[in-house]
């Protein structure tokens, strides 16, 4: 029997319409808007000023702390201004605007398609290269990668897990990446193993991608210690804690880091970015973005520069006249955006355009105590209890019932027959509980 995680989970329709489609190089945008906060942690600090001429790949903003990431120019051109721009957070935040002129790359960046397999760098040098390239988790959570590769004292990594699950419906960017750049991704994986000093790596792929499983299993034979693990299709298998449970059968304790289970999980896209950073000296300035949904006529996978407006990619895919809702990310964990002009960022794995009738929420009814949400919760929480706690501001109840452990996967919302916005309220409770816990510590 195929492996999967042990608690909860759901199985929404896959709708992977762009699966098997090749990666199309998206046009370079006329103007790139590069937000300074594309990752979790401190925003980057700009190192360029208005009027500066840049080549693609040049550093434009330095990490603003340890938990932060560098940002590089995705296009060549001149800096128009450093101003506030609307991004996927729904608020205006500082960003660097670059007017594109030509397509020149910084010296020292290897753009040839030739695969470089050998690496003689020491672990510290690999981590330094990853840090320089500004890589942040590309599955959507955008946690700076070099931080994950520096386990806190007292913890040691035993296995690297590559998250190629792509359990979100509609999205196919990791799938497309594996088919096109499987070997590079495996080299990236071996670099990650080297950086952490571990001898084992597992690549988790859901069994709805048999072509990727077959291809990578064949290629992985040449790499020592890397195995491909086919997983039963189940959402949210791509959650860090769920994937660790599925592959190594260990559960991460409440409040503990995944490293406490001896595993470091990295996204497939991140592994590829690590390869490019270390072997090709290429910083993270472009990523694969799936554009899909009923609101576009031709779902596709694009290789888009960071800072490309979502509108440009949607129009390339045949945006219909009257789209309903635009979601950055997948339908389960993605976020509806308030404007089509927000830019692609490091964590933007897909753009889902829904038709108007799919976009509307159904009216909320009373809870009928069916406990479907309790069965679905992959963290073993009681969503309906937490929602009530949030509604009545009973933060102590929320805390003792582990609101802070919610991974915001939305399974509870999905299964609720009364269309209750469970996650909306739990997110409030989670924020409040974490705030209370922080103030208690200080």
């Amino acid at each position: 029997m195929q492996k999967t995680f042990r608690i909860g989970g759901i199985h929404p329709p896959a709708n992977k319409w762009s699966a098997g489609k090749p990666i199309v190089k998206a046009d370079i945008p006329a103007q790139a808007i590069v937000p300074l906060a594309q990752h979790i942690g401190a925003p980057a600090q700009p190192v360029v000023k208005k009027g500066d001429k840049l080549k693609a790949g040049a550093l434009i903003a330095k990490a603003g702390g340890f938990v932060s990431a560098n940002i590089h120019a995705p296009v060549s051109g001149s800096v128009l201004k450093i101003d506030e721009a609307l991004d996927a957070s729904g608020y205006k935040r500082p960003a660097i605007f670059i007017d594109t002129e030509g397509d020149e790359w910084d010296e020292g960046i290897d753009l040839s398609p030739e695969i470089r397999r050998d690496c003689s760098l020491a672990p510290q040098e690999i981590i330094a290269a990853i840090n320089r390239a500004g890589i942040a988790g590309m599955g959507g959570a955008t946690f700076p990668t070099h931080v994950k590769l520096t386990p806190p004292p007292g913890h040691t990594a035993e296995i690297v897990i590559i998250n190629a699950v792509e359990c979100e419906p509609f999205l196919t960017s990791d799938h497309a990446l594996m088919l096109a750049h499987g070997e590079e991704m495996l080299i990236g994986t071996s670099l990650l193993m080297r950086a952490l000093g571990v001898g084992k790596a597992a690549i988790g792929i859901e069994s709805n991608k048999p072509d990727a499983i077959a291809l990578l299993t064949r290629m992985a034979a040449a790499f020592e210690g890397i195995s491909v693990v086919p997983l039963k299709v189940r959402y949210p298998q791509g959650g860090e804690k769920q994937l660790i449970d599925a592959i190594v059968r260990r559960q991460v304790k409440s409040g503990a880091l995944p490293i406490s289970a001896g595993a470091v999980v990295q996204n497939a896209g991140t592994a590829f970015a690590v390869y490019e950073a270390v072997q090709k000296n290429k910083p993270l300035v472009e990523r694969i973005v799936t554009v899909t949904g009923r609101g576009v006529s031709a779902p596709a996978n694009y290789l888009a520069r960071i800072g490309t407006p979502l509108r440009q990619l949607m129009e390339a895919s045949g945006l219909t006249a009257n789209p309903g809702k635009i979601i950055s990310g997948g339908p389960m964990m993605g976020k509806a955006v308030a404007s089509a002009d927000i830019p692609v960022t490091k964590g933007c794995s897909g753009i889902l355009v829904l038709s108007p009738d799919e976009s509307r929420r159904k009216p909320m009814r009373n809870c009928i105590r069916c406990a479907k949400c309790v069965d679905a919760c992959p963290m073993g929480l009681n969503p309906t209890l937490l929602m009530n706690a949030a509604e009545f501001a009973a933060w102590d109840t929320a805390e003792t019932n582990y609101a802070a452990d919610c991974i915001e996967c939305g399974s509870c919302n999905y299964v609720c027959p009364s269309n209750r916005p469970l996650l909306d309220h739990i997110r409030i409770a989670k924020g409040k509980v974490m705030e209370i816990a922080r103030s208690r510590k200080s």
Partner: protein
Amino acid sequence: MILTAICIVGGTGVLCATLLYFISKKFEVAENPLLAEVQEALPAANCGGCGYPGCSAFASACVNAASLDGLLCPVGGADVMGKVAAILGMAAEKVEPRVAVVRCNGHCDARPRTNLYDGTRNCRIASQLYGGETGCAFGCLGHGDCEAACSFGAIAVNPSTGLPEVDDDKCTACGACVKACPKNLIELRRRGPKSRRIYVSCMNRDKGGPARKACANACIGCGKCAKECAFEAISLSNNLAFIDSLKCRLCRKCVAVCPTGAIIELNFPPRKEATETKES
């Protein structure tokens, strides 16, 4: 037969009563008699505006305190605090009556919608997701968290403007709405003579251009009002003007010079040229 039953049950009753009487005497908790009196004087609204969980907690805080400084029942105001002070034989702090004002005037005509929100009707949830249905990320979301928080029915969202309105007579300045608003739009201000007050009804900290584009009634931070004010009551920071209600003398000159109409005057008689000149 029936007599035996009455005797047994009645006897048990008398025995238990006597026992309970002595036990209650033995374990009696001595309570300050003033506590009940103070509690009686309080409005019993249990709104939490004083910062204590309910009126009885506030009463015991008053009774145990060395002086009444810093203790205030905003609902009862000077009246109730005077009574409490008399009971406890202390002097009450002087209090300026206050009232809640909503610092947003971005009604539907002034602030064009740029998108449509279809999520849970709750300001806190909506503000966590994004800036709001209009171009202004600082303005009122209109889902009525303040209305739900008010225990006195003093604030309600007006469906025609989409903005909450405060009923001066009902508002007790308990501050529940101030805490409920995720955009920090509600401020407790000095009530002013005859409830007259002037305030900047905007919290938009964007620069002038984007602010004006998002809302016709936005404060663009031009500083005209600050220059006009003779009493140094108006300060300007982050592209936003603020009128200090303690320094403001209600001359209304700032209202006249504001190019966007962001400064609002309330409860004043209609303007006449004559009064204008007399005041200046």
